[in-house]
């Protein structure tokens, strides 16, 4: 027994070193899978507060650019107003019901919720974005996030009282499904190879699909996270993979991850029901 104590005392520093390394590696391997394992909500609140201060100062310097962006966005939205359209035939006017959902909001499926970005990274291998909107402001886990031009940014993975952490598309676990806008047969999954920010790879697209450089890739709408037609990016490089009969496609993202300021989280009101149904189907199969 005495020898054991002597041993521990003699090599205390080395043992402490091993212990701390082991703990760090435990954190590395467990964080991505179980977001709530290491009290991340508390860490979120603390760093979120500091980030908030910083972004308030930082925003001041970007006001000019932001104004321009809002201008462009306003323009785009105004162009979509029904008032702007009129059919040429005067006897046969097109009338569109301006309220496509009832007063209880029952038919609304998607709801856009704006949020401010307080922290963002592109240089790490696993990038996260922090939003200043949390559970208290009715944001939920697993909502999709797009930027002001409807370009996909990421998915909410972790949420605290006033802040939310978004797994950016620039993350090794990020995987969303996309299709070619011109050819709905060309579907595949979008991932990041960990190298260049703003460039993603689009895999599993069959060579029968019509794809060429410059084509737009949009969300497919088959997952409950994003509605159909959110811009993901444009094809930057395309070549045929001889061994698998698929294309190897590199796409440039629509969202510019270097300067995200305001984003929209998209809530799906049918999600809970879909999840419940899938859960039921799974449990029956087992």
């Amino acid at each position, binding site marked *: 027994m005495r020898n054991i104590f002597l041993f521990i005392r003699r090599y205390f*520093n080395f043992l402490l070193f091993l212990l701390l*390394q082991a703990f760090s590696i*435990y954190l590395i391997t467990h964080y991505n899978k179980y977001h709530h394992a290491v009290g991340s909500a508390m860490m979120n609140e603390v760093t979120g507060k*500091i980030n908030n201060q*910083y972004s308030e100062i930082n925003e001041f310097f970007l006001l000019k650019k932001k104004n321009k962006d809002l201008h462009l966005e306003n323009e785009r939205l105004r162009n979509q107003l029904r008032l702007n359209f009129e059919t040429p035939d005067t006897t046969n006017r097109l009338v569109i019901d301006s309220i496509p959902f009832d007063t209880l909001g029952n038919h609304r499926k998607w709801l856009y919720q704006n949020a401010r970005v307080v922290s963002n990274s592109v*240089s790490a291998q696993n990038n996260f974005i922090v939003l200043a909107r949390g559970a208290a402001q009715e944001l939920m886990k697993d909502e999709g996030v797009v930027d002001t031009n409807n370009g996909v940014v990421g998915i909410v993975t972790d949420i605290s009282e006033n802040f939310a952490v978004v797994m950016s598309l620039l993350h090794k676990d990020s995987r969303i499904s996309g299709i070619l806008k011109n050819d709905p047969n060309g579907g595949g999954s979008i991932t990041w190879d960990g190298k260049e920010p703003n460039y993603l790879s689009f895999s599993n697209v069959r060579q029968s699909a019509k794809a060429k450089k410059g084509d737009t890739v949009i969300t497919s709408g088959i997952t409950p996270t994003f509605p159909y037609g959110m811009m993901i990016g444009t094809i930057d490089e395309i070549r045929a993979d001889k061994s698998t009969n698929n294309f190897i496609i590199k796409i440039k993202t629509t969202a510019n991850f270097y300067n995200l300021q305001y984003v929209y989280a998209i809530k799906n009101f049918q999600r809970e029901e879909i999840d419940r149904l899938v859960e039921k189907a799974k449990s029956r199969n087992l």
Partner: protein
Amino acid sequence: MSTLVKNILRFVLLILVQFYVLDKIHLHQMVTPYIYFLFILWMPFSLNRTWQMALAFLLGFTLDSFRHSPGFHAAACVLIAYLRPFLINLLIPQEGADSNYDEPSARSMGGVFPYMIYAGLLSLLHHGWLFFLEAMEFGNFWYFIIKTLLSTVISLVLILAAELLFYRKQKFRTNTV
């Protein structure tokens, strides 16, 4: 300023500079400038090794909390804090220099060259271990070796700049009255 206050200020400032200045600079995807571990390089000689490692872990863990990547920087910091005393023993020139000066610097280590070796080796180890842990997840090793080397060079330039900008006065102390 007492050593304690000085080190607390250093800790806070280096973390803030790292996260809010250096992390916002995007030189190239191969280069990530790091300077926050200067806190470990500048820790006093008199601090015992257990504390060095505990403080290094705290430093790394703080940066990890900001970057939402728990563990990566903590592991790298603990590694260099553990190896630091061995390196100082190897590089320090004359007997008792570590008790005559407070903390490692070009002066106390007997010249710019040994000090740069000290800083260079520790930053190489820090970057190497950090990028290695990241590479384990992606598995592209050549890419990470080049990234380690380039980032080390940039970090050394930053450390040199910090040394020149914030000149640390080092009193020579003797125990012979």
